[in-house]
Structure formats: C-alpha cells, structure tokens
C-alpha cells in the first residue's frame, strides 16, 4: 500500500505523544507541595488502612523512578487509583462521565461544523455583501464570547420563558419512567447545553471556512471552472467547497482542544455530568486521582481525535494519500 509511510509516521508520532503525556502527568502531580503520601493523609475521606494500601499499590514509598514505572504501567491499563471523594476506582467515576461528554460533544461539534461550513462558504462567496457582513459579525461575536457567559445568558432566557430545564441530564424521578418519557426528558435537558456548545464552536468554524474558501476562490482552477461554463453554484459546491474543506478538517483536529474547553465550561454551567463537570468538582474536592485520570483521558482523547483527523485528511486530499 502506497500510504503506509504516512500512516506509520502518524502512528509513531501519536504513540510518542501519549508517552509524553504520561510523563507530563506524572511530573504535574508531583508539583504539589509535600510528597504524595502526606497528600493522602490530608484527604479526610480516606482511612489509614486505605492509605497504606494505596501507598504500596502505587509504590509511593519507593524511589521516584520505580514510582514512575508503576505509574506508567498503571496509566496504560487505566488504573488511576481510588477517588478520594467517591471512594471508587477513578475509572468508575470517569468512564460514564466521558460517555456523557461525548453525548453532548459529538452532536454539537457536527452541527457546528455543518453550519459553519455552509454559512462560511456562503459568506466567502458573497464577500463584501450584506450577508457576508452579518455572518462574519455573528461568528466573530460568538468566537469572542466566553462559553460560560453564553450558557449563563441562555439560562437566564430559558428561565424567563419557563419550562426548559437548565441543570443536569435528567429530572429527578425521570429514571423510573418508561423509555420514551425518559428520552424526552433527556432531550429537553440536552437542548440548552447543545445550543451553547454549538454556537461557541460555530463562530470559529465559520471564520475558518470563510478564510479558507476565499483563498480557494482566488485559485486558477476556479477561473478554469468558470471558463468551462460552470454555474455559480457548481463552482462553489463542486470546485471550491471540497478544496476549502481541507483546512477545516485540520482545524477540526487542532481545535479539539478548543472543543474540549467548550465542552468543559458548558458542562460546568449546566451541571452536565460529563468529564468537565467531574474535573470541576475534583478541583474543589481536591480529588487528585480523579483530576489526574480526567486529565489523562481528556488529552488521550484529543490525541486520538487528531490521529483520526489525519486519516480523514489523507483520505480527502489525494496529494497526501500518496506521500
């Protein structure tokens, strides 16, 4: 296969990045004043028996390099210890949270990409016209808007209208209802966080799509298409649009960090029980194992998303496919 070197390079790079993240994660949590054992004692939730157990499991009384080796192995198998607060394995706390985050993140991201792609393309095509000005203005404002502020404003509006849930994933008691009622209850809870996250991401995607399409529209092959007699919509959608998508795809990968930031703050504002909300509560509970596990899983997710985006890019762009 001719694209093996490309895949191989990306794979090696992703693996190295994951290693680096594990190292960073190890160092970060040793920046804390005091050694890890005294930290354990500070946690009111743990009994001394549990502390002794944790100490031996993570080799906390051993030399640093042994601690690192243990930490490394544990990271690879997803063992981050016991949550100080929930007193359950960190993975038990985090895995459902990740799922909840994805339920919010994936549709919001897709919606934002779709909307951004189309309005960005229209904006570029009608450059300098009224439509362009409006789309650009709205996108810029949304881009410059703190997620938590936008979310809060939507909450204020929702309360004014009434009947729209502004907190959590389900109403109290909803879980005992039948599937349909439960699902509807879930959807109504999803509405505001989804709108918030979509709008926040939409701004940036639109601006990037517009800029990328403006570049494409000045390319010679667009004039060629015009000279062939292609209609405006054919030029825009058949020739310009696919080429304009390329930078967007790489942006979607890079901006996964931005998406994560957006999803975290959305979750915090709406008390959506995802990874962002878990991180937020872990900070306040000084629940370091959860914080560490959450950080690891978030960063790994981003690396994998990037890795995946590289494939998509390679698939769309024939120039990369054969490199």
């Amino acid at each position: 296969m001719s694209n093996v070197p490309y895949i191989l390079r990306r794979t090696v790079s992703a693996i190295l990045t994951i290693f680096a993240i594990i190292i960073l994660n190890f160092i970060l949590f040793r920046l804390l004043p005091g050694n890890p054992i005294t930290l354990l004692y500070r946690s009111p939730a743990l009994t001394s028996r549990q502390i002794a157990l944790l100490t031996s499991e993570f080799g906390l009384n051993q030399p640093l390099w042994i601690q690192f080796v243990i930490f490394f192995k544990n990271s690879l198998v997803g063992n981050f210890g016991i949550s100080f607060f929930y007193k359950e394995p960190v993975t038990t706390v985090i895995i459902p949270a990740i799922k909840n985050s994805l339920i919010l993140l994936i549709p919001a991201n897709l919606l934002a990409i779709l909307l951004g792609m189309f309005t960005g393309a229209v904006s570029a095509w009608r450059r300098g016209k009224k439509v362009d000005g409006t789309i650009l203005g709205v996108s810029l404002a949304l881009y410059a808007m703190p997620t938590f502020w936008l979310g809060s404003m939507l909450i204020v509006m929702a309360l004014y209208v009434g009947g729209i849930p502004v907190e959590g994933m389900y109403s109290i008691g909803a879980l005992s209802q039948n599937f349909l009622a439960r699902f509807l209850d879930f959807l109504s809870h999803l509405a505001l966080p989804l709108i918030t996250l979509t709008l926040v991401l939409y701004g940036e995607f639109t601006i990037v799509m517009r800029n990328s399409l403006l570049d494409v529209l000045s390319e010679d092959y667009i004039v060629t298409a015009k000279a062939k007699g292609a209609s405006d919509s054919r030029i825009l959608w058949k020739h310009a649009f696919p080429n304009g998508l390329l930078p967007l795809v790489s942006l979607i990968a890079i901006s996964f960090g931005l998406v994560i930031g957006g999803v975290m703050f959305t979750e915090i504002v709406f008390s959506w029980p995802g990874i962002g909300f878990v991180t937020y509560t872990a900070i306040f509970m000084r629940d370091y194992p959860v914080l560490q596990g959450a950080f690891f899983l978030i960063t790994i997710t981003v690396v994998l998303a990037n890795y995946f985006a590289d494939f998509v890019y390679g698939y769309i762009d024939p120039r990369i496919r054969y490199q």
Partner: protein
Amino acid sequence: MIEIKELVVKYKSSKGEVYAVDGLNLEIDSGLIFGLVGESGSGKTTLGLSLLRILPPTAIIESGNVLISGTDVTKLKESEMRKWRGKKISMVFQGAMNSLNPLMTVEEQVAEPLIIHENMDKDQALLRAKENLENVGLGENILKRYPHELSGGMKQRVVIAMAIIEHPSLLIADEPTTALDVVTQHRIMKLFRRLKDEFGVTIILISHDLPIVAEVADKVAIMYGGKMSEVGDAKEVVTQSKHPYTQGLIRSIPDPRSTKVIRGISGEPVSLMNPPKGCRFYDRCSQRRDLCKTYDYKPAILENRHLVYCNLFEERMA
C-alpha cells in the same frame, strides 16, 4: 470572425483605477492562429478574459463591443454567456500548474464541460474524455490520476483536452507554454497547429514570447500599454517590423548563434494608472518626436492589412 471595437476594461484598486485595455480595436479572422504578444501588464490577458467575460470582480468592461460571429458578447445576459463558455469559446490558462482542481481526477475534469452543457450522463462523458485525451497524446493510464501526479507538459495537454472537448469555434490560450521546457513547448505548439487544421478552430495565442508565437501563428498583434502597436501577418511583423516597440522586442530576442549583447528596451513599462496622453510608448521610444505626445492612435494601413499604430511611421518611410 471576431471584432473588438473601442474596448475599455478597467480595474478598480485601493490606489485608483487602472485601464488595462484602453480603447482597443482588433479584427481576428476565423480559422487562424492569431498571436497576441506583449509584455506583462500590456493588457493582453485582460483582453483574453474579456472575450469570455470572466474578469475578476474588481474589473469591468466599461465600454466598447466584442462581436463574436456577429453576437456582441458584452451585451449578452450572464446566463447566456455561461452557455458560450467552454462550448463556443474556451480558454487555456497561464500556468496550467494551477488551473486543474487538485481534488478531481483528470477524466472528471476533462469530461465536465459535457456534463455542464450537454447534460450527458457520466459514463458517456468519461468515454469522450478518454478519446479527447488520446487526441492530445495522453494515454488511458492518466484517466484516474490527480493533477499533482502529472508533469507540467501533461497538465497542459489535459487542460487543452478539456478546452476542446466541446469543439469550440474559438480557443483562447493564455501563455500556454510558459514554465514548460523547450521540447514540450514545441510539442504543444504543434498540437495547436493540428487542432486548427483538423477542427478549424480559431486560436488566440496570448504570450510575451514573440519567437514562440511566430512559430505557429498566422497573424500577430503586438500590444503595449493597453493599446495596439502593430498588427499583421506573423512573418511580416517579425521580419519587417515597423513599430519602434516591435523592433525593440525583436532586438531583445537572444540569438543562440551570436554572442552579441542583447539590447532590450530601456525604461519601465508605462503605468496604466495615469497613462500619458498620446503615444503610450513615448517615454521609452528611441525615435520619439514632439507630435507623438498628441498621437490619436489612427493606424497606418500598409499592404496585406498590416497595421502600424505609430505617428512617425510615414515620416520614417520617406
């Protein structure tokens, strides 16, 4: 037959207005290869784009007429004009490197005019594309390739195949061989000759390179500063050039057999932002006279419809 009458095309920029084509007249007979020669900024590309009305958004045709087989294309509705593009008139662009869509295969791009204009189904269009590519000397192995996998010469052939697939009556080729090696240049020129002979297509060959154009063109027009300088039979313009600018151009052609130092035309090309009144070439002309400052661009008409746009011409003949 193409008649261009008093054509004015201007570009608007933040610094002011530029008249790239400024009151230009030209007649081009059907079935010929017509060379349009000038240095960059002379307005030759703008003229080519005006015929198809695919000027960039900053440019407009301000006045004048362009009659192509009797129809004034400056008056056509955009929807009508679109039906002409790629069907009656097609164009091959400067720098074929970038004139192909990097994300579409060769066959898709060559077949596209058929899909646009004839509503042909895809398989049939692709079949025609294959025939056309063979016609320009490209084999079947190229069909599914992407532009970045082709050499410059191959890309240029693809672009030509795409331009002739609808058998247009007029083909405009803008610097079709720039950036190609000499051998490929000659091949492409031969191809143009063949297209003219086989299909009777009129070809306007736009180039800065007079020798290359003279190799295939039947007639040539020399442009300078948005206006005509000299028009005539290709051989005649090269061997018996009358206009000081044309003479300068010919003197500046390097002769591989001679070690003589090339004498180019001194000075900078005229600015089209605030062009001087009278002859555009005045500042750089070695034979200028005061009356050139009021020259009205009435051509001297010699034998063989050889036109010279120079005030001093008759004076020098004496």
